Each structure stands twice: as C-alpha cells, then as structure tokens.
C-alpha cells in the first residue's frame, strides 16, 4: 500500500520531468574495464565542492564583508557562534583538500594520457576550473581580512602595478579605489561568493557533460597508441568489453569521496582552523605576511629570482603557464598514452612536482626573510663571549645591537638571510671583515654610514674570535710589506680592490 503511494508519486514526477531514462543511462553507461581506484579524484573534488557551497552559504549568514566588521565577524564565528568554529574549519579544510584532489586529478589525467583525442576540450575546461579554484583560494584568504590578507592584497596590487602602461589602472580596478579599503574587500567578496561560484559551476557543468559524452578513457597500455582515425572504434570495443558505471566504478567514487569527507571532518574537528591574531590593520607594522600554501612557490620564486627576471615571473609566467597547460592536448593529442612511453612528459611531471614542493617548502621557511626579533631576542651564545677582551666585548654588543643577528645566525640561532657566522674568522681575514662590514655586498647592506670606525674596529675584533678551537683564523695569502693596507685608509683600499677586479 505504502509502496504503491511512493511509486505513484515518483511516476507523477516522472510523467512531468521525463528523467528516468537519463538517470538510468547515467548509471548504466558502460565504462572501460580495470579503471581501478585511479579515477576517483575528480568526483572527490566535486563532492568537496558541494561541502564548500554548503559551508560557504552558512558562513555568509554571519560574515559581514566590510573592513570595520569582517575580522570581528570571523572572530564571532570562531568563538561565539554555536558550532561556528566547526563550519569555518570544515570550509577551510575542505577547500584545501579540494585543491589537493584537483592537483591529483590533473596529474592522474596527464600521466594516463586521458587528455588526448577526443577529450581535449574536457582538459581545457578543466584548466579553467583550476584557475577558478586558485581564484577561490586567493579571494578566500582576502575575506579572512587578517594582516596576511591585507598585505596579500598589497602584494597583488604591487604585481598588477608592474604591468606596462595599464599597471596603475589595474591597481585601481583591483582595489576599487585609491587605497585598500571597503570597496577592495567588497570586490573580493563579490568574486568569492558570486562570480567565481557561477563561473565554476558553469564550467563544471560543461566539464561533466563532456565526461559523459566522451566517456572516461581506458587505462593506458604501452604501445596502445591513440589515433584519430581508429580511436572511436577502439573505444567502442573497450566499452563493449567494459562494465556498467553502477555499481562497481560508482561505488569506488562514492567510497573514496566518503573517506575524504570523513578525513576533512575529522581534521576540522581535531585541528580546527587558526585565526591570525593580527587583523587587517595597516598601522600594525610588525606584520609578517605569508600567502596560503598554494601560493608559497610563487612567493619563494619572487624572492629567489634575479631582479631582471622579476617582471617576467610576475606577468608572463602565470599566463605562459596557463597557455602551456591549455596547449598540452593540442601538442600531444594523439600517440602513446602510457606514462612509461612518454618519458619527457613523465619526467616533466616529476621535476615539476619536486620543484613545487621545494619552492613551497622554501616559501614556508622563507630563509631570506630577516628574523625581525633576533637582535633583541636571541643573545650571543655564552661560550662566545666568556673570554673576550673589552674591545671584543664591545664588538659583541655592536653585533647584537646593530641588528646583525636579524640576518646572521650564531650556532644556528638567528636569521638565515646571510651566512651563519659561528666560524666566520676561518673564512675571512680581519681586512676582509672590515671591507664586508663597511661596503656590504652580496645581500648585505653597507654599514659604513651606520657604524663609527671605532665600532667597526670593535665589531671586527669580535668577529675575528669566531673560529673553532684548534683551527687558526684566516690569514691574507700575502702579508703587506709595510703598514696595514686596509687599516684606516679606505680610499686606497678601494683602489686596490678595483685594480684587482679588473
């Protein structure tokens, strides 16, 4: 009786919607055999997207996108709103997990050669989805409106400002005004909450339509080449020998998605998500802005690349990178699919992944950033000062007070911008130390104007003691015949240096 009622209702809808055939077709459509567990990353990304949409809507119920309230409302969500901390944590973890899944999905599709004929367009649409996702992550970081958000926008503006001719106009477009303020945040809010979701869902619809229309590719086999003339027939045969999407492949998708979702929920519940204790206040000057992890490789690259490459890295590299991704199926749209028969592509993936991990790690560690508190917070190890002469002690004080520790470590403690100076006396003679301190060089500022000559003398006297017991300090290869060449007469010394350099 009850069953009849349910069936009747379903039939009522079916009579109007007429969707049963499509649903059955989608469930029963054949997929090639032996797809295994490698095809689950795409569907997991979509699952996480639904979580993002859901938690995103929940967050907008409290969040206020104006600079005077944005940070406060996030504090409210995190500390006062019932279960607000959890919803925010899920949104954060799920968004990051989505990025991971999408990267895995792209890598798998590339290595399997699944982007080749006739799935070129699927790949291209996917590249756009990837860019939208990056947009989500950047704008999401802005919406937190903490100090990293504020200076992150500043960095974005500085980058845009480098575009020839239209740079300043782009900066104003990005900021929505002359400075970072209300309209800036609103722009990123509109982007994150309206524009990007619409674009993402639209493109995702096309992506999924293409996946349904072209079918998933069969796992690659070495020497089984893709040829435009024959592929359609070959694929037809693969489907004939294949299995229906439901239940087995579908079950794999569902099980993996469920596992990922559970992992996200557990991570969110156990670790939550931190709150940067500094709001987006430009007058709090001791901020230490860092981008979210997907942007760390770029952050690192911008510190490591030589100045002449910088504009290229900022303006050309992202565009060229996207063009490269899009061009892949048009450059190698046929031929071998197996990663074992595509050595350049496969090695390229390995090199690219290693490069991104190394750059990302460097970006996280940021050895080039001065340790801003080291000069006051990291004292010179006692063993280095316990048997010093008065002059050398003054030098040690100069070394500490003149912020040298911000860039130079002793016994591994302190900044890493410059070399660790624990054993500097074994590498540089007193004369070379004077020259380095006074003139700078490498990445070191010249301290000639910042230090009196007495201070320089004391500093160098201290640095000259920094050599391990039993290892003699460095000596000049040729001792000057009369009088010290690098004693007081710097001009003379300069000439000698120049002459030697030429």
């Amino acid at each position, binding site marked *: 009786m009850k069953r009849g009622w349910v069936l009747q209702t379903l039939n009522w809808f079916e009579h109007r919607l007429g969707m049963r055939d499509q649903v059955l077709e989608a469930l029963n459509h054949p997929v090639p055999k032996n797809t295994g567990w490698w095809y689950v990353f795409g569907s997991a990304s979509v699952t996480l997207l639904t979580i993002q949409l859901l938690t995103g809507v929940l967050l907008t119920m409290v969040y206020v996108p104006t600079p005077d309230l944005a940070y406060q409302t996030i504090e409210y969500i995190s500390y006062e709103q019932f279960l607000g901390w959890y919803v925010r944590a899920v949104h954060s973890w799920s968004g990051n997990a989505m990025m991971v899944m999408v990267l895995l999905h792209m890598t798998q599709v590339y290595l399997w050669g699944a982007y080749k004929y006739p799935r070129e367009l699927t790949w291209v649409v996917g590249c756009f989805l990837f860019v939208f996702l990056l947009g989500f992550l950047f704008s999401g970081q802005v919406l937190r409106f903490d100090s990293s958000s504020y200076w992150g926008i500043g960095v974005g503006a500085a980058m845009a400002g480098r575009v020839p001719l239209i740079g300043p106009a782009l900066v104003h477009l990005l900021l929505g005004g002359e400075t970072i303020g209300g309209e800036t945040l609103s722009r990123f809010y509109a982007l994150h909450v309206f524009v990007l979701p619409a674009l993402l869902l639209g493109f995702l619809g096309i992506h999924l339509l293409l996946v349904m229309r072209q079918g998933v590719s069969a796992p690659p086999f070495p020497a089984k080449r893709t040829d435009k003339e024959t592929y359609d027939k070959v694929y037809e045969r693969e489907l004939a020998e294949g299995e229906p999407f439901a239940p087995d492949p579908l079950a794999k998708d569902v099980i993996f998605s469920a596992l990922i979702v559970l992992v996200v929920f557990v991570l969110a519940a156990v670790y939550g998500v931190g709150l940067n204790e500094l709001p987006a206040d430009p007058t709090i000057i001791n901020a230490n*802005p860092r981008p979210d992890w997907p942007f760390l490789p770029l952050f690192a690259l911008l510190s490591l690349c030589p100045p002449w490459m910088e504009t290229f890295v900022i303006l050309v590299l992202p565009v060229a990178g996207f063009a490269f991704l899009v061009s892949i199926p048009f450059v190698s749209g046929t031929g071998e699919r197996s990663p074992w028969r595509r050595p350049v592509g496969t090695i390229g993936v390995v090199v690219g992944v290693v490069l991104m991990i190394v750059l990302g790690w460097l970006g996280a560690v940021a050895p080039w950033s001065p340790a801003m508190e080291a000069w006051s917070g990291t004292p010179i190890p006692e063993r280095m000062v316990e048997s010093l002469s008065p002059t050398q002690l003054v030098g040690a004080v100069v070394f500490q007070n*003149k912020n040298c520790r911000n860039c130079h470590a002793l016994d591994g403690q302190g900044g890493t911008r410059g070399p660790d100076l624990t054993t500097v006396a074994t590498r540089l003679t007193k004369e070379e130390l004077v020259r380095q301190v006074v003139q*700078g060089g490498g990445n070191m500022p010249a301290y000639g104007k910042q230090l009196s000559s007495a201070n320089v003398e004391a500093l160098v006297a201290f640095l000259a003691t920094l050599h391990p017991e039993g290892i003699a300090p460095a000596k000049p290869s040729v001792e000057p015949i009369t009088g010290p060449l690098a004693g007081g007469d710097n001009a003379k010394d300069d000439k000698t240096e120049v002459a030697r350099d030429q």
Partner: protein
Amino acid sequence: MNSEHPTPPCCNSSGSGGHGGSGDAEVTLASITRRGILLVSGALFALAGLILAIPLVGYIIGPIMRRKEDQWVDIGALEDFPENQTLLVDFEDPDRRPWDGMTGKTSCYVRRLQGENFQVFSINCAHLGCPVHWFPESGLFMCPCHGGVYYEDGGRASGPPPRGLYEYAFRLEKGRMLVRAGHLPTLQDTMKETS
C-alpha cells in the same frame, strides 16, 4: 527532435488577429527571409546588450575613470618629530569610506634630520608592497616578505627592491606637518615625490 515541424508556427496564425488585410501580411512575411529576421533581431539584441553593458562595465571600472587626487593630510605638529629620529605615524586616508574601519588609516615613516629638513617614507616596500620595519639601532628598514633592506635615507640597501622607498611630498604650515597622501604607491604610480 522538436525541429520536425515543417512550417514555422507563425505562418499558421498569420491571418488572425488585428491585421487589416491578411494578404498584405502574407506578402511582408514572405519577403522577409529567415536570415533577415535573424540578422535584424540579432542586431537589435546585440545593441540592447551593448547599451546594457556600457554602464555596467563603467560601474566596475569606476575607480579608473574617477581617480581621486591626493590631498594634504595633517599628520602632527612640528615638535612631535624630534630631530635625527625616524617615527612611525598613522594618519587617516583622505579618501575613506565610513565603513573602512581600521583600513581607513595609513602609516608612514617620518624622518626629521635637522630643522625643517624632513623625509616622509611610505611603509610599503618598493618590491611588492609589504610593510617595512624600522630599526633605529642600525638605521635600516627591513622588509619581512622577501628581505629587502633600505638605508635610513630610504635608499635601497640590498635585496630584491628595484628602487628606494617611496617618499611622500610634505609641507610645513603654521607649525603643522602635512603630507600629500591618498593612494597606494606602486612602481608606476609613486607618491609623486616633490621636495
């Protein structure tokens, strides 16, 4: 599947309605080709779209179209700035919204050498805009992002910055210190330094 109708539905109903003579209407419809109708309606649609789009795009690029000039901002009395010191000073942006909150403020470094000899620096690193930290002990500005360093006179000392710190134009008026401020300085849109 739906395109199996041999004649467009319009032709079946062309005689009815308030047309004066059905024969006239028939002639007119026949003389307009399908392509012509498409072209005219398409052009009309495109025109409507364009008319719609122009103001909307204008709305988005408004900040470009309507630039706000920098303005003189009072940042303190002359005696607030001791000689031979560099101080961090906050001031309210001339172009701010009521809902700007803390972002309605900006900071700058004011360096007073002797007498009326000043330098006013932007806190934004010339590399990529991060806030530089001032270290009076060594007379250096250091950037936390990519390690750019500047001397106390704002000159580039080391690291990736392509130039020295951006400088605000300033002016002394009735014992007050005024700086010309109002926009975020970037490489091609500096503070328009003047002495």
